[in-house]
């Protein structure tokens, strides 16, 4: 089958989103199903067929999501309703929208900040409880209670740790 000429092809737009919290590993396919479910739930089958969301690339915590041109707003609203992906709590933060994947890759290179873990200890105490530092990104520090009873993640800052 020969490829269609450019004028007859469907026009797409690409949204760059970052996955919160940092360090969460998500399968591209799982995220696709989550986005598809969220879009269908919010806009219905008819609009979801028009939007046609698809996860086309992943670079670390950044994902590139494709939609049909003119439906970026609808997809962005649907993305904001996503709270879990296969029982893992996540939030998708919209970073940029573009007509090409390459420009979004360029954007990823400019917004990427180095993770600084060197000056933070591996353990800390907060509210008289010992926590293990799970992720540290600039001012943001994510901790998990030490032990096997409670594995809930707490979201703190460096200043919270300094108060101890």
């Amino acid at each position, binding site marked *: 089958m020969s490829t269609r000429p450019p004028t007859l092809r469907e026009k797409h737009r690409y949204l760059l989103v970052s996955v919160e919290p940092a360090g969460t590993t998500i399968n591209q396919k799982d995220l696709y199903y989550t986005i598809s479910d969220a879009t269908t739930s*919010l806009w219905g089958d008819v609009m979801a067929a028009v939007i046609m969301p698809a996860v086309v690339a992943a670079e670390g915590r950044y994902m590139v999501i494709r939609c049909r041109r003119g439906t970026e707003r609808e997809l962005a609203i649907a993305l904001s309703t996503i*709270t879990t992906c296969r029982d893992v*709590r996540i939030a998708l933060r919209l970073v940029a929208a573009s007509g090409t994947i390459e420009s979004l890759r360029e954007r990823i290179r400019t917004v990427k900040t180095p993770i600084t873990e060197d000056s933070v200890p591996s353990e800390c105490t907060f509210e008289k409880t010992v926590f293990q530092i799970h992720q540290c990104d600039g*001012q943001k520090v994510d901790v998990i209670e030490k032990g096997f009873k409670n594995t809930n993640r*707490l979201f703190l800052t460096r200043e919270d740790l300094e108060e101890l």
Partner: protein
Amino acid sequence: MKITDACVCPYPCGDSSVRRMALEAKNLGFDRLVAADTPSGEFYGIEVCTGIIIWSTPLKDLINRVKRERNSEAVVSVEAGDNGFNRAVISLKGVHIIRGIQSAEKTAFDHVAAKMAADNRVAIDLDLSLLLSGWGITRQRAMHRFRDVLTLEQRFEFPLTISSYAHSIMDMRAVREITGLCSLMGMDIPDVEKAFFGVDIITASPDPAVKVIR
């Protein structure tokens, strides 16, 4: 006028410290947070106001609680109940926000309550947590209830506030995303801006009833 999230619940109610929520709010485009049961302060350039949420208690206890908080700087929110309860709460001096109207019964907020809210400058909160985490009929009901509130707001012009009711930084949404979600209920950008500035309206000192001219 500051873009305000009218209710967040930091640690220990939620899993994020108030500083972390302030940092996240800054990245998301907010200027101020109303944090439940948290001392006021300023973190990373974000003003954090103390918020007090009063759940459905007997009216007598509620009146005593509101009286105690009247001289504080806290933003007092009361969870909506039935129509009679809401009318009584709106007429109380010291109550700033009625929240949870989407979970109250259908007749909880009518045109009489709307007129009273406009006269007493009591805001109705649009809690977006159900739109974000809700699904199917729950979300549809919440959207329907908000549309009903917005119809009354256009007629009587009582203040509105927008809150994420976030217990975690992952429940917080950017200003642009909230604008998008509000557009689902028929709010345009000026309406959303007005609602974001709702906390400024309700906490400003009221115009005096009598003006002294010398």
